[in-house]
């Protein structure tokens, strides 16, 4: 399909649908704002599914449209340009589904993909534990087979949107006494069962979009493990590999929006005349353009086997975003002290506070630098 026509199709659909009851969702949701309108955003997911936009990147045989990379990019750009809300279904659509397609059985694919594709089943992620953060392989949550089912005992933490999800994928230790990356198993678990308790974790803003998830003999049927028992680490890492797909450019379009909000605020407050803030605003814009160039380079994939631009991408965007948050507050000045109902101010305050999590979750800055040093630069452990 011609890209221009495709962009027109996306933009046209969004212009028709993202209004009326959904109008209030524009530029809402996403990390730092997940508590905004969760029910309505689930309805929006079903609307998206009806439009054929959920799983559009999946192969056609799995219910997708098999969109090539450049159209995926075009879709994300148009979506964010139109103010499309943060996606409730993205963990299922962009992380679990590609993993199922690559590593799941045909039966698992038939069982789970349609619910995701329809915008009706929502997923969350059970990786980190209180004692296994940066050291993810230190997982102590246990699992074992018990007749027709697998059971899980332990605790996961930092689970975004668990309270709004139907399923969780979990990595747990199936070989008693095993250590590190060995002896782990990757399970798909329904959340609505007596053996699972979800507790919100209050974050520094006072909101709670992360959760602790407690498993007390919770069960799932034996067909719900991906890969073989003991292969969980490999599956878990394959899933994380899908994080650097075309949706990174969608994330960047959110950043473009935030950047514009900062620029508008600077013009409004007079911060635009402060030499230091001018320079920081220019640096933020420069950094954002560089993120885009870097993402395109990553997607072009012609930088050899080491692919430094991929290994550094999470570090680069999270620190850029954190700096933007600090800049935003400095642009607001003392007015930033007060919780605001103004959409622009609220957004900037969210960026300031929530971006502090960006450099921590999904591999802290420190872990990212270790990874770069060891994998990209081959420095000794």
């Amino acid at each position: 399909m011609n890209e221009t026509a495709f962009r027109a199709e996306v933009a046209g659909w969004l212009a028709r649908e993202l209004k009326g009851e959904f109008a209030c969702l524009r530029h809402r949701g996403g990390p730092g704002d997940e508590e905004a309108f969760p029910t309505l955003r689930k309805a929006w997911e079903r609307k998206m599914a009806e439009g054929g936009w959920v799983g559009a990147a999946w192969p056609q045989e799995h219910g997708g449209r098999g969109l090539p990379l450049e159209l995926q990019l075009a879709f994300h750009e148009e979506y964010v340009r139109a103010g499309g809300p943060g996606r409730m279904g993205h963990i299922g659509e962009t992380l679990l589904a590609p993993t199922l397609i690559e590593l799941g059985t045909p039966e698992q694919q038939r069982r789970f993909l349609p619910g995701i594709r329809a915008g009706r089943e929502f997923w969350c992620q059970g990786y980190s534990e209180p004692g296994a953060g940066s050291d993810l392989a230190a997982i102590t949550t246990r699992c074992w087979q018990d007749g027709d089912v697998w059971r899980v005992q332990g605790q996961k933490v930092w689970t975004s949107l668990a309270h709004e999800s139907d399923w969780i994928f979990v990595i747990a230790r199936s070989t008693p006494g095993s250590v590190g990356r060995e002896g782990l198993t990757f399970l798909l678990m329904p959340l609505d069962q007596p053996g699972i308790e979800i507790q919100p974790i209050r974050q520094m803003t006072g909101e709670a979009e992360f959760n602790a998830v407690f498993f007390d003999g919770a069960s799932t049927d034996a067909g719900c493990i991906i890969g073989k028992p003991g292969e969980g680490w490999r599956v878990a890492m394959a899933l994380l590999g899908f994080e650097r797909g075309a949706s990174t450019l969608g994330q960047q379009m959110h950043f473009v929006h935030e950047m514009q909000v900062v620029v508008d605020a600077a013009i409004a407050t007079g911060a635009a005349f402060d030499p230091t803030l001018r320079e920081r605003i220019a640096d933020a814009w420069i950094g954002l353009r560089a993120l885009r160039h870097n993402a395109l380079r990553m997607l072009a994939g012609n930088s050899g086997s080491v692919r430094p631009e991929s290994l550094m991408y999470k570090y680069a965007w999270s620190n850029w975003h954190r700096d933007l948050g600090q800049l935003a507050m400095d642009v607001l000045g003392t007015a930033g002290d007060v919780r605001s109902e103004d959409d622009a101010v609220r957004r900037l305050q969210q960026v300031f506070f929530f971006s502090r999590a960006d450099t921590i979750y999904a591999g802290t800055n420190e872990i990212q630098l270790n990874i770069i040093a060891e994998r990209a630069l081959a420095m000794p452990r």
Partner: protein
Amino acid sequence: MQNALLLSEEQLALQDTAAAFLAEFANARKPRDEDARLWRRIAELGWPAVQVPENLGGLDMGAVELALLMEEMGRRLIRSPYFASVVLAQTALLHAGGAVAQERFLPELASGEVTATLILAPGLVWAPDAIRIECRRHGDGWVMSGEAPQVLDDGSAAMAFVAARTEDGFGLFHVSANAPGVERSPLDVWDLTRPQCAWRLRNVRLDPGARVDAPGKLEVGLARTVSLAALQLAAEQVGGAAACLDMTLAYTKERVQFGRPVASFQAVKHRCAEMMVRLETARSAVRGVAASVDCQEDAQALACEVAVARVLASDAYRYCAQEAVQLHGGVGFTWEYDPQLHFKRAQWGSQWLGTASVWRERVATQLLDLA
């Protein structure tokens, strides 16, 4: 030459007492209705009197003693009217106020019976052009109108000293919080340890004695007030930065990942060392500047010296608070752990009494333009 950085026995004792008291009575995590009780204890200790002259019921100490107290209060994130009433209002009265006003207000402020706040241009800077409140002659007295959208006041201040535009310039006025026409509403602030109110003044009638500035002292006195208050804010920030480092050390020594305490990783060690370097540099600056300000007459020279403490302490606190959040990992981002309290207060403090950029530009002007 006596080394001005040498603390006396009395100063060291004051510091120790404050540290012990505040460790016990820290209220950042306690309900707001505890605040009044803490304030009474602080008043009993005589802290509101430190910088007030003896003949007005004070202890007649200097900027060094005040800075030692502020540092300890900053370390414990104390929520109290101390900053507004002592560091702002008292300082303004001491340096811009007339003798009558000093005699009328300082004894009760020194005793801690009542507290006050200060209203200047937004952000508490001395910028006449930005003063939004007007005060017109009205019979023998005055009538005042205007808005101060963000005032450092937890709602308990009995009065404000307000810099207002008059028909022929500016003046500093005493306004009682319960005067007719004064409307005060608490703000929903991020930093819960530093409450703010909006003050709206609608045709507030003031008696003839409400104008408190001494003739000819307003501009210099308020500029000096801002400098001295910025220095004390810097002292408070040093205490906050120290708390950030301490809690980060405690957490990383305890937290085990990859089979060893996080504090044993060299990258973490270097980051904590960098926190210490910035913190201790700022502390040296605050101590050194505090030891010299009481004899620094020239306003511009005072501002340059204060800039050293202000810039370094504000930046050190932001840096240390940010690092505390980061080095706590996931929990650093939660409500339950303390890094977020410092993170918010560090941001708060970076925007009031002039940003670091504003103070740097004062130094640049002195070095480059007036040379």
